[in-house]
Each structure stands twice: as structure tokens, then as C-alpha cells.
């Protein structure tokens, strides 16, 4: 099996039943990267709990309309950071957050960075990286673009 086939298989497995999808009620922190208005984004919710005198992540969830890789990375990352303190979670880079998926092909590293960005935006908003470099309008943006216009019903013919 080639490296790219192996990667596709792991992603396929991960997105069959993604973990921790959806909004987390009563979250202590929320972070977003991308443009939430048009849905081209990844958002992460984090809830803390006290454990052995430390404030650790109880649960993290995410929502994204992005590619399979972003879904897969967010799914494994939200599982990995549970039980960690904010500092420990922040110390993890994109490659650590996506480690269970194995090495990502270079073109997909951006997807892991997206997850890392959402995590930073939630836990350390002042240090969150600028949102992604400008890309041409994406398909998502195109069909979700909602320009406010006046709707005029035509008279019946």
C-alpha cells in the first residue's frame, strides 16, 4: 500500500465516526479560525474540570465544514487534549495533534494547522495566529454568500 493510500484509509476510518462533533453546552472557552459568517471555518469548544488540584480539559468538541482531513484531525485532537491542562494542550503542535493519523502529506499539514489555530484561539486568544492566508473564494463561500438584498415578489402572470 502506498503512503497516500495508507493516509486515505486512515482518514476514511477517522471520519466514519468522528468524535466530539457539535457545540458543547456550557463551554469555558470557544475558538474559531476561518470565516464563521460563511461557515468556512473550524470552531472548537472546551470545557474544564478540576482534577487533583489542576484545571484540566474535561471535554473538547468541534464543528467544521471543512475537508475530511480537517474533520479527522479535529476528531483525534479533541480526544488527545482531554485530561491536559491548557498549557499542556497549547504546547502541542499540529503534528502532535494529528499524530494518531500518522504523518500527514505535505498538502494536508494545513488542515492540522487549522485545528491548532482553533485550539490556540480558544485557549490563548491573544496569541492565536492570523486566519489563513487569503484563498480565492471557496465553494462553501460561494453557495453560502448571503448578500442582503430586497426581495420583490413578481405579480402573477
Amino acid at each position, binding site marked *: 500500500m502506498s503512503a*497516500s493510500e495508507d493516509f486515505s484509509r486512515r482518514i476514511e476510518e477517522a471520519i466514519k465516526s*468522528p468524535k466530539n*462533533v*457539535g457545540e458543547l453546552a456550557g463551554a469555558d472557552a470557544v475558538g474559531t479560525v*476561518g*470565516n464563521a459568517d460563511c*461557515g*468556512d*471555518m*473550524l470552531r472548537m469548544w472546551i470545557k474544564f474540570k478540576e482534577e487533583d488540584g489542576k484545571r484540566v480539559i474535561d471535554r473538547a468538541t468541534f*464543528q467544521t*465544514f*471543512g*475537508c*475530511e*482531513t*480537517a*474533520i479527522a484531525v479535529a476528531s483525534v485532537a479533541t480526544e488527545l487534549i482531554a485530561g491536559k491542562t491548557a498549557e499542556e494542550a497549547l504546547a502541542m503542535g499540529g503534528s502532535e495533534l494529528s499524530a494518531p493519523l500518522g504523518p500527514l*502529506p*505535505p*498538502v494536508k499539514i*494545513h*488542515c492540522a494547522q*487549522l485545528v491548532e489555530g482553533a485550539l490556540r484561539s480558544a485557549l490563548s486568544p491573544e496569541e492565536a495566529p492570523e*486566519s*489563513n*492566508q*487569503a*484563498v*480565492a473564494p*471557496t*465553494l*462553501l463561500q*460561494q*453557495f*453560502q*454568500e*448571503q*448578500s*442582503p*438584498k*430586497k*426581495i*420583490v*415578489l*413578481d405579480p*402573477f*402572470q
Partner: protein
Amino acid sequence: MSDLLQEFPGAQRALFRAYHIGGCSSCGFRSDETLAQVCQRNNDLPLEQVIDTILSAHEAEQKMQIEPEELSRRLKEESESPVALIDVRSREEWDAVHLNESQFLTQELMQEILTSWPKEREIVFVCHHGIRSQDAAAFFAGHGFTEAKSLAGGIDAWSMRIDPSLPRYHLE
């Protein structure tokens, strides 16, 4: 890429359907990249093959369209897996006029479809004139939904050809 998209408006849909490129910000491309650069950083896709895909996009788009008459027939059929009608227009347009059988695409519904709907479910996207719904159908097709379709001519064609009691409208 901006020149390419100007010349071939369906190119982005074709790229996402076939190669999962250009759908969201994590697989997007920059306007100033060339197609060769985009291919190269996407697992070294063969440029010739990608160009063929773009050139035959028109044909593929035709296959993703469903005419209002055909949709009307499908909606009347008794089926265990009824066709899902998803409206991608703005909330204001939806409030003004919509098909009874359709659902308004909220972010929550989108998340639900992407994560839990069967990939072979027939989904027909609806917009005003059948343009944005094509983008939506291509987006979902690129996410593996093999039966994602777009209502040809949109709700406007539906008003004219199937249900004249549904008011037509224009945007100002």
C-alpha cells in the same frame, strides 16, 4: 487560477468534485497560483488529467442537474429513502417563498448531513436560479455524496413549470 476560473466558471466545482480542491479554506487555492502549482502541491496530480477533468466539467455538471419535471415525479414516488430537498438561499428568500418539501440549510443541518447522512442519499439542492445550488451539489459530491444534485433553473423554474401558485421574485 483567477484567469482559469474566469474562462471556465465550472472549474472550481470540477476540481472539488474530482480532487477535493477549492472547497473550503483548508483545501483552497490562491487566485495568483497557477493550475500547475495547485496540482503539484496536491500530491503531484497529473496536470494533463486535471485539465481534461476541467474541460469535461460541463458534461459532469449536466449529470448533476435534475429538471423540475423529474424532481416533481421523484417527490411523488413512494420510496423508503425519499429525496431530500435542501434550500441554500438566504433566510429572507426562504421566508418569502419555498418548496413545502424542502429544508432550509442551516449550519447545524449542514453539519448533520456531512457527518451522519448516508453518502448514497439523494439530495437535491435548490436556489433561486440553479447556480449556487450547483456549487452546493459539487461541494457535497466532493465530500462523497454520490447522489448530490442541483435543481436546474432553481425555484424560479419550479414556479414557471411545475407550480404556478408559487410566487416568482427578483432581488433588488
